[in-house]
């Protein structure tokens, strides 16, 4: 384990960014924490987490995939991808680190999504333990430990220092290059105990996912409660856009005047045309679309991924939904707990 003082964190950032682009959570002009490319003067945000999750780093909101040159009846396919450079993301919380695993199970299984894989390969994740988890946090419901967030390197803040520990080969290599002072883990052990204590007292500490998981499709799909739960849903898709695990995307094209670019962009199962096709739409109303989102996170995804849930309890949808509907209310209503 290594340490540096909080005051010297900026010089560590400078060292990291000498070799690779570094992104850290920083407050924007609206006071919202967003991942920002580090440069001298960019200050680390004090907020618990960023408005949007860091999934953009591997699965950008909009991404050009390929281009076509169309001349008369002929089409030429143009590979427009650029070689991916190494990059480092600092400040990722335990929930969002786990979300990468959820996304990996989608994009890295055969046939591999090479766009995602290429970025994943070149990205280094430095997580930070949550010293001040908030009332919307429920990562522990899904077995995630906010005190041990994982990633390539984990950082803990304690008694005016940042403590660094590598978890992977990539992380070890980077950490070794930073020239930090070696230390024991006493301060970190105390910090972990402190975090564990706070976690126990969080309002959602007792939320259980036992009523959900693979094999529960028929039991939960036809529950009458979906109607009342979804009644006020606006179908705005905010929950899916701030969600660190939502991975649905659309593929579209636009004519640049010099050719056609095919791109993909985030899509949302909450939207009415998401499943609309020429012969009709299997999810005609918001009840069905709302149900799909939560059934996917809580039943379909775990069924296909050895029980791993598709929600990581980051709480963004709790904070952002304009009508205050969210996965916790769904779990409490259908699971009859807490």
């Amino acid at each position, binding site marked *: 384990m290594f340490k540096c003082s909080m005051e010297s964190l900026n010089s560590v950032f400078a060292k990291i960014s000498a070799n690779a682009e570094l992104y850290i959570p920083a407050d924007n002009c609206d006071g919202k924490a967003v991942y920002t490319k580090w440069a001298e003067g960019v200050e680390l945000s004090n907020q618990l987490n960023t408005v949007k999750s860091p999934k953009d780093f591997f699965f950008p909101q909009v991404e050009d995939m390929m281009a076509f040159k169309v001349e008369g009846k002929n089409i030429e396919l143009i590979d427009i991808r650029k070689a991916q450079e190494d990059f480092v993301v600092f400040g990722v919380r335990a929930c969002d680190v786990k979300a990468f695993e959820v996304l990996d199970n989608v994009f890295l299984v055969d*046939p591999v999504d090479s766009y995602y894989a290429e970025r994943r390969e070149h990205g280094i994740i430095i997580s930070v333990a949550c010293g001040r988890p908030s009332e919307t946090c429920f990562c522990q419901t899904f077995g995630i430990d906010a005190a041990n967030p994982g990633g390539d390197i984990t950082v803990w803040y304690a008694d005016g220092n940042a403590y660094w520990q590598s978890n992977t080969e990539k992380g070890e290599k980077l950490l070794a290059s930073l020239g930090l002072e070696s230390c024991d883990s006493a301060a970190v052990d105390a910090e972990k105990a402190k975090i564990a204590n706070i976690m126990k007292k969080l309002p959602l500490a007792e939320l259980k996912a036992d009523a959900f998981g693979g094999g529960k499709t028929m039991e939960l799909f036809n529950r009458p409660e979906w109607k009342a739960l979804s009644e006020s849903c606006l179908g705005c898709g905010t929950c899916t856009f701030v969600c660190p695990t939502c991975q649905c995307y659309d*593929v579209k094209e636009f004519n640049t005047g010099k050719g056609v670019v095919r791109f993909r962009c985030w899509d949302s199962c909450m939207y009415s045309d998401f499943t609309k096709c020429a012969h009709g739409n299997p999810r005609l109303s918001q009840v069905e679309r709302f149900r799909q989102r939560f059934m996917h996170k809580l039943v379909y995804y775990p069924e296909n991924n050895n029980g791993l849930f598709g929600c990581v309890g980051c709480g963004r949808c709790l904070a952002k939904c304009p009508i205050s509907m969210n996965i916790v209310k769904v779990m409490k209503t259908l699971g009859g707990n807490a």
Partner: protein
Amino acid sequence: MNARNEALIPHIAVITDVRLDTPDIKTFRVVTPDGKKAFDHRPGQCAMLSIPGVGEAMFSITSSPTNTEYMEFSIKKCGCVTEWLHQAEVGQQITIRGPYGNPFPVDTEFAGKNLLFIAGGVALAPLRSVINYVRHYKDRYGKIDIVYGARSKEDLLQYKEIMEEWVNDEGVTVHLTIDREQPEWDGHVGFVPNYVKELGFDTDKTVILCGPPIMIKFTLAGLTELGFEKKQVYTTLELKMKCAIGKCGRCNVGSKYVCKDGPVFRLDELDELPNEY
């Protein structure tokens, strides 16, 4: 990086023949620019076709894998991509990627069985590749019955092939029907579900059923009356797709993705999924 091996990156292909099959269905013959078949497939698998600037969509490959020279797609005019394709001429290049999805179990569960194909309208397109495959390897299967219906005689897909080839095959019986009487038609008149019941098939058959949801529903009721079980019946589904590889998230029925876990399902398997297709 070899772009050709990437899941989402298509190949260029060219349309070498366009056949007007019915007033709203055309059959397109497709090969690579150097005249070869774009890739091998199994009966019931699909491919993503696109016209850059218009869009990309999933279509069943209607030609049989035993055709090693080209692929065919029977496409009904009903949306952006299909409307564009319908005005395309021979020599037009398009893009193609695939094959996608699980095929019908022609070499396993179907082997040695009497087969009953039931289709309505454009739904003959996905079954044609299976029908021509089992016709090609006829000694591997028992008796083959084909019940096919459409709105009118003009709406029967592949009518020429049916009348010139299928009906002449030994061991193959074709039962055609149209919804309403019309002057030059002396065959059966009536809807597919009723016709299946009238024909009263023995339950020793494996059924391959495809058509609009309403036809499937009533045909299945008829088959059940005749004593068929759901595990004897196979169908193929179609939902909106973008990636075709189980990642874009829109073609799921419960935990199954039609693009990679389907499109072929046995009806008893579908019974275990939510009715959302």
